[in-house]
């Protein structure tokens, strides 16, 4: 359609868009309900905001129609395409080097490191969910449940039995994997959207139980005073006998613990990545990908669909358990608040935005989404609004994700052409 030739039509369309925008925003934006001085609700008009929104809708729609067909080259310009293609194989290494060297960079302070830890936690969760969604094609909207299981497992084992982080970490992973199988069994027959809703329900059940089983989990108050991990028996506390700083003859500095936690989550994330990459070359990984493409063909070829699905759930959940244990030890406090549906949605958004199945894409997406929303922290309640809008817009613009091209699991003759 060459809409550019028909400005009159475009104007009419834009006017219609503005009219619809007025209908949408007049009640909800134009009239704000507030509790008045007498305790009853009252309305406050905000018609200038509505006018702005209608103007934006008009201009946006008009620009969209007028520019349609003219602006369809957002892809890399030709002079950039070749270097970009050549640089692509080195990108993961570049990111890795940056991640490893981050604490040593001169401008990196406490805040940046904390942000790095947060981003890496989501990278790890994204990679873990990628096994379930990206590789096996099982849409899981309750992934946060396993994260919660891992976190509560560590918190309870550490506070009730005094077990150390390094013993609890594998236990948390195993426990989460066990729950993954437990969820996996009943939902084996479901597919697609149904699976999504059941996993969502499962995630909510776990959260409601955590919230109401007060004698075990502390209910809404959560669990506090979760012990911090040490490095081979060396503590990072200021007044410990056997402290890290003393052993290496350093001045005590709280940043040591932050750097340690940073490398800990980096190692955990890389472990997730390594296992995923290895598994993809194994028969199991190939079975996952085959399952994603066509379940019926899989059955016909004699792949055990039950085992394949359950391992995907279990391994994905296990990594969420690791991440949960790390989360608990970093925060030293957990409550059901941290494990709401929105977390699952964020992790899923990371996986889908990254281009399902692409390890690099997931890492970039986590950096963009988590780092990006961090930039908007000052906007408080606008943050999630922008997040939701971004999710829709990205799906519209790039439904296949940022890194849509997936590296093939196998190549003929074992080498790229």
């Amino acid at each position, binding site marked *: 359609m060459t809409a550019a030739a028909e400005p009159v039509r475009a104007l009419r369309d834009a006017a219609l868009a503005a009219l619809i925008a007025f209908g949408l925003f007049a009640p909800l934006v134009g009239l704000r*309900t507030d509790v008045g001085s007498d305790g009853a609700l009252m*309305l406050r008009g905000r018609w200038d905001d509505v006018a702005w929104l209608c103007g934006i809708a008009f201009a946006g729609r008009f620009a969209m129609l007028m520019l349609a067909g003219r602006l369809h080259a957002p892809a890399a310009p030709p002079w950039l395409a070749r270097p970009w293609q050549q640089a692509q194989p080195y990108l993961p290494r570049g990111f890795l080097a940056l991640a490893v060297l981050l604490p040593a960079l001169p401008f990196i302070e406490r805040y940046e490191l904390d942000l790095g830890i947060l981003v890496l936690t989501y990278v790890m969760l994204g990679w873990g969910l990628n096994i379930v969604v990206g590789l096996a094609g099982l849409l899981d909207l309750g992934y946060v449940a396993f994260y919660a299981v891992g976190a509560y497992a560590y918190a309870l084992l550490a506070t009730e039995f005094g077990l150390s982080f390094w013993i609890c970490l594998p236990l948390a992973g195993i426990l989460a994997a066990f729950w993954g199988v437990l969820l996996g069994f009943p939902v084996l027959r479901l597919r*697609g959207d149904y699976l999504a*809703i*059941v996993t969502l329900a499962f995630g909510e059940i776990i959260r409601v139980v955590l919230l109401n089983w007060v004698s075990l989990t502390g209910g809404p108050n959560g669990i506090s005073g979760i012990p911090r991990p040490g490095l081979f028996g060396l503590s990072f506390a200021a007044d410990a006998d056997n402290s890290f700083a003393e052993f290496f003859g350093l001045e005590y500095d709280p940043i040591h613990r932050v750097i340690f936690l940073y490398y800990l989550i980096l190692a955990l994330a890389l472990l997730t990545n390594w296992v995923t990459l290895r598994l993809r070359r194994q028969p199991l990984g190939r079975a996952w990908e085959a399952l994603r493409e066509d379940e019926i063909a899989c059955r016909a070829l004699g792949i055990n669909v039950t085992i394949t699905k359950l391992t995907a759930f279990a391994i994905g959940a296990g990594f969420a358990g690791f991440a949960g244990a790390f989360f608990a030890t970093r925060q030293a406090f957990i409550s059901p608040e941290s494990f709401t549906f929105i977390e699952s949605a964020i992790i899923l958004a990371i996986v889908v935005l990254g281009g399902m199945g692409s390890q690099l894409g997931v890492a970039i997406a986590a950096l963009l989404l988590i780092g990006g929303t961090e930039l908007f922290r000052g906007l408080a*309640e606008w943050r999630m609004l922008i997040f939701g809008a*971004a999710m*829709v817009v990205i799906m519209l613009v790039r439904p296949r994700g940022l890194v849509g091209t997936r590296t093939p699991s196998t190549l003929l003759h074992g080498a790229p052409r």
Partner: protein
Amino acid sequence: MAYALQQLINGVSLGMIYGLIALGYTMVYGIIGMINFAHGDVFMVGAFISLITMLLLGLGGGAAGPGALLLVLLAAMAATALYGYTVERVAYRPLRGSFRLAPLISAIGMSILLQNYVQVAQGARSKPIEAPVPGGITLMESAGFTVQLSYVQILIVVLTLAVLAGFTVLVTRTPLGRAMRACEQDRKMAALLGIDTDRVISLTFIIGAALAAVAGCLYLLRYGVIDFYIGFLAGVKAFTAAVLGGIGSLPGAVLGGLLIGLIETFWSAYFSAQYKDVAAFGILILTLIFMPTGLLGRTEVEKV
């Protein structure tokens, strides 16, 4: 006995609300095969628009006449229908024919967007009003327990039945309803036969949103307090109702809604109110595992 009767009344009126929302899920799923994740939030928008219209008409503090309530209902239906239309037009239509998960992700994004939009525009605090339809009938009194049938509950049942009757006529007797059923059976074939499927899908979203607005308005009248987060739980439960009744089946959605409402009410009355959501979600999981086609659903033959 009296206690059980009271729970029955409460359960039916709650179930009617779920049924109205569930219809929106089941219609959209029937026609384009996607879970409209944002539908629960459209219901929430409907409740908010009802609230604002009520305040606009000065109905915030006490009893209201039937004419004014009808006006509120119609305004909420119209404005919410516009939301339903816009959501489909902006977030789903461009993704038709895209890969399987794209519309679902877009719908989740839309749900987050709507929730936070209402939070930003109207504030995070919950909005209480004084009941516009106060009072009720005392049905019986036994052993110090009175069974109350409030006027709101009568209104919910009567209005829902009226809306459902109109809706049934629309689907079974009108050209639009025929087009909708044709699209549901085979969208490509319907398009080949000259049905403007995009228009039919738009209208499906509009009707679904209008029904959700009725539910939102009734919810506000019944409970008297709303906030921006009510859509999530109500949405998941209504979806459960749609699945329980057999997704794609319109009478099934209402039946499922009634069952979910009754189960939830009786569960909180006799077992534990804290775990009532677990009961609803548990039913969802059990239904999908043991009876994936629901009570009134069709079995789908899987083709390669």
